[in-house]
């Protein structure tokens, strides 16, 4: 694999080994990570705690050095500070100088990009408005709530109008409004043509937002692709809800009925889980019995299920390796 500037992010055989404790005990953070993030896509990086998500991000933005391997941002080696000129980064639980106000903070970060003058001031005002901090822009950050700090963090990540935004757990600990704001920013930036690379434990957000998803477990990329590619198109079951007149028996097995409730109009509301082959027959029976179909929804594998499978596979491989060694 050659490194190319066709990708926003490209890593090849990226390794990170941490040494800890007095005896320099080795801990592998990343194991030969080969990853590509295309320009203009929203890429979700998912995995359990300690899987290597933050390590990857920290290597990309220059907070950690890789033990081995290569990484480029828009074709520029990640160790070159110039590679960060077009990058915006929001770390997990961002910490800022508490004595500064949001406006001063943005001015400081703007100057780190060699910005200044009226262009910087205009950008600051625009971002403060965008993250809804207008009323608090001149208060010191020590008086901010967690959600407000996260918004200030988002603003600093956007100060240089980046082409690539790297967000580490941007929704962690936020209330629904805060999460919505982050989602909106991601969508707006994607519209602008920006690439977004983010990690999250909130898988429903990942499912909704991402063009592609990478699953990382124990430092290894276990799967990568769009939601469709990861979870497949196969319909597992079909969940259905319908009302039938009380006393009518559809001949359904007891285990397929998830709940049953009598209604005031003399009917019964049934929630059932059916396999694909049953659906048309059951629905015909419901309508034949004078019932009403309320909802029919196919259920597919969730990202959570896929992730759990990948974690299981990784654990299985480790135990097999251990048995092999023993």
């Amino acid at each position: 694999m050659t490194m190319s500037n066709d990708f926003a992010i490209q890593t090849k055989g990226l390794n990170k080994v941490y040494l800890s404790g007095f005896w320099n005990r080795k801990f592998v953070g990343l194991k030969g990570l080969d990853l590509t993030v295309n320009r203009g896509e929203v890429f979700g990086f998912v995995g359990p705690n300690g899987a290597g998500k933050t390590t990857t991000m920290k290597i990309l933005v220059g907070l950690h050095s890789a033990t081995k391997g290569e990484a480029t941002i828009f074709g520029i080696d990640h160790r070159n500070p110039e590679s960060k000129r077009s990058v915006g980064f929001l770390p997990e639980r961002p910490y800022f100088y508490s004595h500064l106000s949001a406006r001063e903070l943005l001015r400081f970060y703007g100057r780190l990009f060699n910005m200044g003058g009226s262009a910087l001031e205009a950008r600051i005002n625009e971002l403060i408005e965008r993250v809804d901090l207008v009323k608090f822009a001149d208060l010191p950050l020590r008086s901010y709530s967690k959600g407000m700090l996260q918004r200030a963090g988002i603003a600093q990540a956007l100060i240089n109008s980046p082409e690539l935004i790297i967000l580490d757990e941007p929704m962690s600990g936020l209330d629904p409004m805060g999460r919505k704001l982050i989602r909106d920013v991601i969508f707006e930036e994607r519209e602008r043509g920006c690439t977004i690379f983010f990690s999250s434990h909130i898988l429903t957000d990942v499912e909704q937002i991402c063009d592609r998803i990478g699953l990382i477990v124990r430092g290894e990329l276990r799967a990568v692709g769009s939601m469709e590619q990861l979870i497949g198109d196969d319909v597992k079951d079909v969940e259905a809800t319908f009302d039938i007149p009380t006393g009518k028996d559809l001949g359904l097995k007891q285990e397929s009925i998830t709940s049953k409730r009598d209604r005031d109009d003399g009917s019964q509301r049934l929630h059932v889980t059916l396999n694909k082959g049953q659906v048309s027959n059951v629905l015909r029976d419901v309508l034949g019995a004078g019932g009403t179909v309320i909802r029919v929804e196919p259920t597919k594998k969730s990202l959570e299920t896929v992730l759990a499978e990948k974690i299981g596979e990784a654990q299985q491989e480790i135990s097999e390796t251990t048995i092999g060694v023993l």
Partner: protein
Amino acid sequence: MNRLLAIASNTFRETIRDKILYSIIFFACIVILGSVAMEEVTIGDQDKVVRSMAQGAIRLFGSVIALFLGVGLVYKELERKTIYTIASKPIPRWIFVLGKYTGLLWVLALELALMALLYTVLMWSRQGAPHSSVYISWVMLYMELGLLTAWALLFSCYSAPTTAALFSISIWTIGHLADDIWHFGQEASSITIQKTSEVIYWILPNFEMFNASAAAVHELPLTLSHFGGVALYGIGYTAVVLTLAVIVFGNRDFK
């Protein structure tokens, strides 16, 4: 340059909000003003005693400020994780280190200027205008504080403030005893001790080179060649220590 100044001015603003700075300056002022009281318990040249004590206070408290602020300079950024959003910007790490250092130099300049102003007013009111050597001694002290801060910054790049403070105090103490270490070493019969003292003398800083308090107290002139030599030594040595700090900081991960 703009980026270095941004980090320096932020460091300056952050440091001058540090309460410990005001506490130390407060005690320094008390001691400088309190030096007048020494007149009452001194026989002989009372003016010299006042000058000596005030000069000593400026030197001691200046060093304390350089040490205490210097050892936390980089470590605080790592501990509070404010480094994450700075190191992820297009900033070479040497700019960050030099920016932090420059910011603290500005604080030291302000602190020294305040104490110098107090000293000048005090002397003016009692003994007339201070001798020119007093002002030169302060410039030399500023160079000493610059070197001490560079050492503290170097230690701050890889160790916690307590350890960094311990190392910095050791360097400061040894640096002030450099000449004595040399002399004691030369008088020792053991070749090992002689060689060790020579190594310590040549490798570690000689802070006494910057000490012009005697000239300031006794109102003796300081030659330009002496000042030039000290300045060359101070700037050169500081550059070496800062280079080491940049190398150490450049190779570390931010956890």
